[in-house]
């Protein structure tokens, strides 16, 4: 499991936000992305996950390696916790749903509908989905939003176990997870340089209002 990103540039809404980003990540390692709001952390993660094309540069990794988790948890409100996880387990062809329920401390909630969970419980269920996928590279966007201290510790423990099994994690987060082994990448130096006031070149309406 090796992820290599070389000279990557990625864009949000047609505007290049990050340029010349290069890093490597191998099995057993975690990389935490830092940077102010709007710098392009989510954009970078979506590009690595393959949800949007890179403007320039290369991403190399084994096929079907990524398990992606974003702000939205992808839960169905009228399905129970167990049904939500069983669905993703069937999609990924694994039988790890019971294991994930155990791991994220969801056993007591297994028969509750997702709409009756609190925000933090939903988040835990969303993260349990990662365990179900069995994919080696976790790409996580703000995974700890709305988690309490105990759940953050539970999540950090799950990440640590994932790394110990040879997996890797790439995440954007503002809080300290207490993962001593994780490296930190500050994205500020990679901010794309746009000339002052420049609009995207292909904007047909540029200058119309001037």
């Amino acid at each position: 499991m090796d992820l290599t990103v070389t000279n990557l540039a990625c864009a949000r809404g047609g505007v290049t936000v990050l340029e010349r980003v290069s890093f490597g990540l191998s099995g057993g390692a975690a990389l935490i992305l830092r940077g102010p709001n709007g710098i392009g952390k989510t954009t970078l993660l979506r590009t690595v996950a393959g949800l949007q094309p890179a403007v320039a540069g290369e991403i190399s990794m084994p096929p079907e390696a990524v398990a992606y988790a974003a702000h939205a948890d992808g839960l169905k409100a009228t399905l129970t916790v167990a049904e939500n996880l069983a669905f993703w387990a069937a999609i990924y062809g694994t039988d790890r749903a019971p294991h994930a329920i155990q791991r994220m401390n969801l056993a007591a909630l297994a028969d509750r509908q997702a709409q009756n969970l609190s925000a933090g419980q939903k988040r835990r269920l969303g993260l349990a989905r990662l365990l179900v996928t069995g994919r080696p590279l976790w790409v996580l966007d703000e995974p700890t939003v709305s988690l309490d201290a105990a759940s953050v510790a539970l999540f950090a423990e799950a990440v640590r176990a994932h790394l110990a099994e040879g997996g890797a994690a790439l995440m954007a987060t503002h809080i300290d997870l207490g993962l001593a082994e994780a490296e930190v990448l500050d994205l500020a130096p990679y901010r794309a340089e746009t000339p002052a006031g420049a609009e995207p070149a292909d904007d047909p309406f540029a200058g119309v209002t001037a």
Partner: protein
Amino acid sequence: MIALLLRDLRLALRAGGGFGLGLAFFLLVAVLVPLGVGPEPATLAKIAPGILWVGALLACLLSLDRIFALDHEDGSLDLLATAPIPLEGVVAVKACAHWIVTGLPLTLVSPLLGLLMNLPAEGYPLLLASLAIGTPALSVIGTFGAALTVGLKRGGLLLSLLVLPLYVPTLVFGAEAVRRGALGMDVATPFLLLGGITAGVAALLPFASAAAVRINLR
């Protein structure tokens, strides 16, 4: 893929899934038209094939925007796009689920409504057959329209405008098959064209829908 189909069906049947919406609309159309047009049996028999087909088509249209909108809102669509099943398969399964939830029940209740519309006896098997063959095309084309408008807030109007012209051939040949059948004429031509449209869109449009979803996820 089977898991996705079962999940979509289960979601449709649970509270707020919108299962009965299209069916209720179809029933209302068939009940209200005789009240509006008047009880003249000859008039009703004449317009029955067209009204039933238009009703089925509009009932299908009602639930189209739900095909991808809900999955897009809660993030499932992003996750499905990174899942091991191809997006072409995902959209094909979603079209199939939409047909089972709307097209199939519409087809099954249509003879009952034909009775309300005073459809001539020869028309019933043809009404069933033409809806069974034609409604899958409505779901597949509708899924394509939903894929084009996924991510747009209040995209329902745009979706209807995009999809309605594409529905016209299915409507024309479907209603024509029933009308000719009711008059005892040969129905082979409209049936073959109806089947051809369904087979063609089912083979081609999932690829177009998947491409549209990919672009809209960016």
